[in-house]
């Protein structure tokens, strides 16, 4: 009897951390929704200069502030400028500040915190005392001094905010790394003779991603609001350019008379922050290497 070729049992295919994460993320509806909203919002903000029928600075004093109507979908501000256009232009600034400053704080905070936690001992003590000292400096004044020193420049604004926002991130990452360092899989990695760098970047940091991402989603709104505050003091974005935080700040002043000036920017900002939070939540679950491979 000719032996029929037996169908071989296929070996389970290995899937990378990234693939797993992507699969899990797609299953999370809130995260997908949040991501979708963010992508649409970003896309609109990016294409605005080529699409908007109005300029962000073109005034129409005769018109003044009018409620939403056909020519101005979201109404106009007190100088007769189209609010929709200003929100979209403001979004460019807010997104840039939010992402860039958070990226800076992420870069510094994660590296610093992970190193402190991993090296431990006296190095850790010294590094964390430095963080403590920086914490005691009045944060707003520090940013203002940096800005005054470095001049009025949007890029410097990102750096300045990012450079003072990394402290909490460093502490969180250090705590995570310290607790993970004692875990068996790290000991296993040490026994296997992996280099410190590999242990740090392949094992410790990926396993701390959860708290890092959650804190990032909290940092972005914080940074956006901080930018509004600095702009009000004359240090950030300068008129006629605007940002979401600034639009809301100005809108609040005339809330009783021109409610649309505060309502629409607030809706857009809240929507963005919600989306960021949902997405962050989803990413945290998705990226957790300890999650089961179901």
């Amino acid at each position: 009897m000719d032996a029929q070729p037996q169908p071989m049992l296929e070996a389970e295919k290995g899937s990378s951390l990234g693939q797993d994460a992507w699969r899990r993320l797609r299953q999370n509806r809130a995260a997908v929704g949040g991501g979708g909203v963010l992508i649409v919002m970003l896309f609109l903000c990016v294409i605005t200069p080529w699409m908007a029928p109005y300029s962000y600075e073109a005034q129409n004093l005769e018109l003044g502030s009018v409620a939403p109507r056909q020519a101005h979908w979201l109404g106009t501000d007190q100088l007769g400028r189209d609010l929709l256009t200003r929100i979209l232009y403001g979004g460019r600034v807010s997104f840039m500040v939010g992402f860039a400053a958070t990226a800076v704080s992420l870069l510094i905070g994660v590296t610093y915190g992970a190193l402190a936690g991993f090296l431990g001992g006296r190095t850790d003590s010294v590094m964390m005392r430095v963080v403590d000292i920086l914490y005691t400096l009045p944060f707003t004044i520090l940013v203002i001094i940096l800005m005054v020193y470095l001049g009025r420049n949007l890029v410097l604004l990102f750096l300045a905010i990012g450079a003072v926002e990394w402290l909490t991130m460093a502490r969180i990452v250090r705590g995570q790394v310290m607790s993970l360092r004692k875990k068996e899989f790290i000991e296993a990695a040490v026994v296997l003779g992996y280099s410190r760098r590999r242990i740090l970047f392949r094992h410790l940091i990926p396993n701390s991603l959860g708290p890092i991402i959650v804190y990032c989603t909290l940092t972005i709104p914080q940074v956006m609001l901080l930018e509004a505050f600095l702009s009000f003091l004359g240090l950030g974005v300068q008129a006629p350019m605007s940002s979401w935080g600034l639009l809301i700040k100005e809108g609040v002043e005339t809330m009783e008379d021109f409610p649309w000036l505060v309502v629409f920017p607030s809706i857009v900002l809240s929507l963005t922050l919600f989306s960021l939070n949902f997405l962050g939540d989803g990413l945290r679950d998705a990226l957790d290497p300890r999650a089961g491979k179901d």
Partner: protein
Amino acid sequence: MKPIRIGILTVVSTAAFTGCLFREDRAAIGIREGVLHMGNGAEPQALDPHLVSGFTEHKILTSLFEGLATLDGTTLEPKPAAAESWTVSDDGKVYRFTIRENAKWSNGDPVTAHDYVYAWQRNLSPGLGSEYAYMLHCIWNAKVFNEGRLTDFGQVGARALDERTLEVTLENPTPYFPAMQIHFSFFPVHRANIERFGRIDERGTKWTQAGNMVSNGPFLLTKWWPNRIITVAKNPYYWDANAVRLKEINFYPIDNLQTEELTFRAGGLHVTDAVRKSRLPKFRATMPQYLRMHPFLGSYFYRFNCARAPFTDVRVRRAFAMSIDRELITKNLLHGAYEPTACFTPPNTAGYTCTASIPYDVAAAKRLLAEAGFPDGRGLPPVELLFNTSEEHKLIAEAVQQMWKKNLNASVTLVNQDWKVYLDALTNMDYYVARSSWIGDYYDPNSFLDCFLTGGGNNRTGFSDARYDELIGRAAKTPEQGERYRLFQEAERILLDQAPIAPIYLYRRVYLRVPELKGWDENLLGYVIYKNVYFETCGAK
């Protein structure tokens, strides 16, 4: 124990509940009892008439102290106050005031000519460092004494001939000298009172605290809780106490206009300090009986730094000044709160109305700019527009920025700074264009025009014109009003031709006030004579 507790609880809650339902609000009680509640903008720097500089303090001090003369609430003509009469010498340089026999301090002591001499000596003492000492510089030798170059006050032109006669010798004939007496820098202080708490030239002693202060005005200080309330009550020793109809005035330092408006609408105030301009259309439509608007002796304008390119060129300055559409700003942006102006001194300042002007003329502005070497704005360096942090200044600055861009193709960056930093920048002339305003210190065009004398402390533009200085100097020596005003006209024409400033609008006092409040004068100085103020209650005669 228990039934008693329940009983108390019932009584208390019932009282509280019905109390809430039927309680009269603070304003209604005030109207019935003659207690005025007014919003006063901010916490005063101090209550020492020689150490303050603002309108906020002026409004409180006017109730506490009384100068030699006051003004008629409508015509702003000087009227006798602590002095019952005065005479002027023929050359207009020597004034002789006769103090009222029954003028008294709030502790019953008589007000004497010596008190005024003492107060002026105090204000001029170099050690006190009074910001407004320069108001007294019109008095003979006052300036040299103030600068410390003269130590004997006996040589200054203020002398008590006897208890009731005060003789004042001036540097120049100053026809507005009696009118200046409403300014707090001329107010008297009680010598024993000052010296009980410190030296004559000691700052910040405790004499201004409630209970310590002795004053000579229609009211006396009874309560001062910083950042909450200042209460003044009728002064029984005041010479005209019978005419004072209010029992008490409460000043509330509410610096947020929104809070102030809500307090007013909730019945917590009779008068507000100001209103937000964006609220005007709503007020006009829904509560016109409360909205008060009247002209105020102040100008809002932009300064050009005449020492910094491109504003070293008069043609550039004029071009910038001529391309601001003031009408559009006041009408549309500020909802008609203020009056656009093409000159610096407000019209009808003590009968003086400027005839020169800087017109709004874009075509001419473009021509001037081209003549200056910047046709169509080409080659024009980037310019910064400085203002102190405030929503309203920012709104106007944004509008002007756009006008300059559209009309002159000038690229202008907005810079806002905190008040003190901004003042520093102005004083050190570290700016290109800066928003500014000037409120008249006394009712005379000189209060405006002497700002721009070469090197003057309030010049701040680097503007210097020999002819201008000469005209203002000559006006100061001219006793005859018609001739003085002719000199002022010529001077202001030079000022506007040289355009170190771009006038924008004239201030108005815009505030809310309950209709029951009567005797509240609406004049250019915003000068309220509290003893004339009263409430008209319905049903009263």
